[in-house]
């Protein structure tokens, strides 16, 4: 038996691992990077991601994207700066194989500048006498569905877990953070977003603790004065000693464990159950602080 290596397979594997490393090494709050992270997530969650994207690019009969013949498939990639020429094989399989070789940055380019290139929609609408704006809108809806389904492809276990904790679900999904401190808002939102990605839950926890430290300085004055004001605010009609000790305990946990600081002697959180517990305990406290601040600001305004 003779074994012949397939170079394309090794290139696809390289892309696959680059995506994986990008996800594991990810540490950014830039919107453009978060967009890529979400795209990688969809790509990894859905084993057919490239096949389905290929069908959109080819404009198969059952979708809302412009039809592309062999010539236009080649042109599609050439226009984006790629050196691929369709070899006459089945278009969607050929496109799938090309997509499997593209990095996540390149996939992003293919979607933004290629798949949703208005010029192609205009041309198709003109040829078929259809409404360009309507076609474009339907294509966006179809793509969003594909993307959401890709992300949800593996969510049954996580969802059932989340559904067991209604309070947590509320905290994660339903609170829009709109304090006057944008950095604080971003830190909390990023912590929530990242918590959905199993590999990022440690980072989510760190971001949430960063948000807590930021929150302590929400009011004017030094950190101690600001924290005291916050404790006073959340303790109305309750017990300030309890709230103050909650602040202290969570601060201590953040300092003792590898959450706020990363020295080698910091204790590790090895069990995901503890990560969940601390995440939601902190999120509950932050949520209480935010709603108290909001109420207070509404009264004073």
């Amino acid at each position, binding site marked *: 038996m003779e*074994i012949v*290596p*397939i170079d394309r*397979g*090794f290139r696809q*594997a390289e892309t696959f691992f680059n995506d994986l490393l990008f996800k594991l090494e990810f540490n950014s709050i830039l919107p453009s990077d978060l967009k890529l992270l979400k795209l990688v997530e969809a790509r990894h969650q859905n084993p057919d991601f490239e096949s389905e994207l290929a069908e959109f690019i080819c404009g198969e009969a059952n979708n809302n994207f412009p039809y592309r013949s062999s010539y236009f498939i080649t042109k599609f990639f050439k226009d984006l700066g790629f050196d691929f020429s369709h070899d006459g094989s089945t278009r969607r399989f050929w496109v799938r194989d090309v997509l499997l070789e593209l990095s996540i940055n390149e996939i992003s380019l293919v979607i933004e500048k290629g798949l949703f290139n208005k010029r192609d929609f205009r041309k198709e609408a003109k040829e078929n006498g259809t409404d360009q704006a309507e076609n474009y809108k339907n294509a966006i809806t179809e793509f969003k569905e594909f993307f959401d389904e890709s992300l949800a492809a593996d969510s049954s276990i996580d969802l059932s877990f989340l559904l067991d904790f209604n309070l947590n679900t509320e905290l994660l999904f339903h609170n829009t953070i709109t304090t006057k401190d944008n950095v604080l808002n971003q830190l909390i939102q990023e912590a929530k977003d990242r918590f959905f990605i199993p590999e990022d839950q440690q980072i989510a926890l760190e971001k949430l603790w960063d948000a807590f430290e930021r929150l302590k300085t929400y009011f004017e004055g030094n950190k101690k004065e600001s924290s005291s004001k916050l404790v006073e605010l959340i303790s109305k009609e309750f017990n300030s000693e309890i709230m103050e000790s909650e602040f202290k305990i969570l601060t201590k946990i953040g300092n003792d464990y590898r959450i706020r600081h990363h020295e080698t002697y910091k204790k590790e959180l090895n069990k995901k159950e503890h990560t969940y517990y601390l995440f939601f305990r902190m999120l509950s406290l932050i949520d209480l602080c935010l709603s108290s601040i909001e109420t207070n600001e509404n009264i004073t305004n």
Partner: protein
Amino acid sequence: MNNTEKIEKLKLKISELKEFRSKLDSDCLDKFNSLKKEICELLDDNQKIKFNTIEFYTESVTSLNADDDDLPF
């Protein structure tokens, strides 16, 4: 295994995999397949599916009798 360990292990396995790009043959196929298994242990279920769909080689049966004059045709 924490993230840093996983990254280091993955990088090591990736470089091992790359070495097979030009030298993969029937003699080292078993070694290559065990490397694939080791990589799979570092992946989640969906990543495993994705990784396992990648075709790294083709197999063809070479006839030992290709030049045999006694063939009945």
